[in-house]
């Protein structure tokens, strides 16, 4: 493979620090051995290679990383977390990158609708009529025993408001 030269204008040297502050604190310890990739179920079926994302992040290729579809492929299985010989906790880096991506407007539609469910119902997976009927057949309450009061939903929304997440779903 031919070596490519990085164009300086695409490099943001502060990106790595941003990622560290957002939770990917050990990224600097990565020595690119690839143990994470060889453990990764998402890498098995997609073009996502966690090691490559770590390298690009260290190099400051911010736009490239934040825009990438690949950062959304991790299943958070934690295999890389347990196996990395350098304690990088790669999954923490990916989650930090996702948090930054969301704040930059790269927020996958499906996850937005997950957030809407939390705002509207306090639950990610919501009840259907069919399941409600089945619950009664099983001798359970019609609705989930959680989120029983409007106070609970108010509290959830207050938290989202304080952290500035409410509003990002639109």
């Amino acid at each position, binding site marked *: 493979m031919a070596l490519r030269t990085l164009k300086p204008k695409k490099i943001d040297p502060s990106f790595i620090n941003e990622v560290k502050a957002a939770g990917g604190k050990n990224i600097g310890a990565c020595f690119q051995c690839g143990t994470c990739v060889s453990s990764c179920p998402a890498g098995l079926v997609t073009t996502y290679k966690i090691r490559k994302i770590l390298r690009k992040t260290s190099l400051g290729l911010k736009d490239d990383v934040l825009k990438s579809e690949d950062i959304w492929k991790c299943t*958070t299985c934690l295999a890389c977390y347990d196996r990395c010989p350098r304690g990088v906790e790669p999954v923490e880096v990916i989650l930090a990158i996702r948090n930054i991506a969301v704040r930059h407007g790269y927020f996958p539609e*499906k996850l937005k609708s997950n957030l809407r469910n939390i705002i509207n119902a306090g639950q990610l997976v919501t009840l259907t009529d069919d399941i409600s009927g089945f619950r009664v057949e099983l001798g359970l309450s019609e609705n989930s025993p959680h989120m029983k009061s409007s106070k609970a939903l108010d*509290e959830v929304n207050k938290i989202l408001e304080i952290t500035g997440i409410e509003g990002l779903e639109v």
Partner: protein
Amino acid sequence: MRYSLFLGCVAPHRYPGIEAATRKIFDRLGIDLIDMGDASCCPAPGVFRSIDNLTWLALGARNITIAEENKADILTVCNGCFGSLNEVNYRLKNDVITRLEVNDILSKINREYKGEREVKHVVDVLYNDVGVKVIKESVAVPLEALKVAVHYGCHFLRPKTHLEHNGSARMKAFNALVEATGATNVVYRDKLLCCGAGGGLRSNDLESSLEIAKQKLENIRESGADIIVNPCSFCTFHLDTSQPALNEKYGETFRIPVLHYVQFLGLAMGLKPYELGLQKHLIPLDDLLEKVGV
């Protein structure tokens, strides 16, 4: 013994049989489960931590404060809920700055995280607090005819840093509980492979999450197992629903029934399949039930 029952979203809203089984087996064991009426989504570790770490911590901590009010540890039936709540609890117990930050948010809704409670997976409760001996004694219908492929699920085993017992001790515990029913635990390739559902992948890219499930299911099929038993509501959901989806997409012929451990134990305790909600599983269990004479 009493616990705060944290069911999460998947069990009550997709596989209510898991909720019914949990209530019934704990009733038989004489253990009280207290409902958490004010609890929200855990919130889902893959989805919500991907959106915003602090929000994830604050919503998780809010749920834990409800268990603190109940003065009873949390019992979860989903690896996702366990992963979220246990990790939030671990972080807030061990990191003073994060705890202050989270409590500052919680103070606006008149709550305070105190760090007084444990978050326990149902397998931990059954293995450590109840004990395999009592589980064995509770078996009325031994499931000796069944070959089980155990799927532990990722957040049951990892991360090693935040769990009281390491992955191999946790595998041993789950194996012992499965074997306590009389069933045989089979060996299969890449047993620790993820089911493919987590991290928001199932929401975001269903196709890739099915591809991971396909690898897992192929390995299990190769072993000749009669059934998959796992300790997670979300893995149950994904492994059961993936099979018809893969059959349609690739002309596959997957037909391996999937049960959550609480349902499996319920069968062994002599509860009726319809009481455990087995009729709504996409992969039918009829042949299997015939095999064990239920």
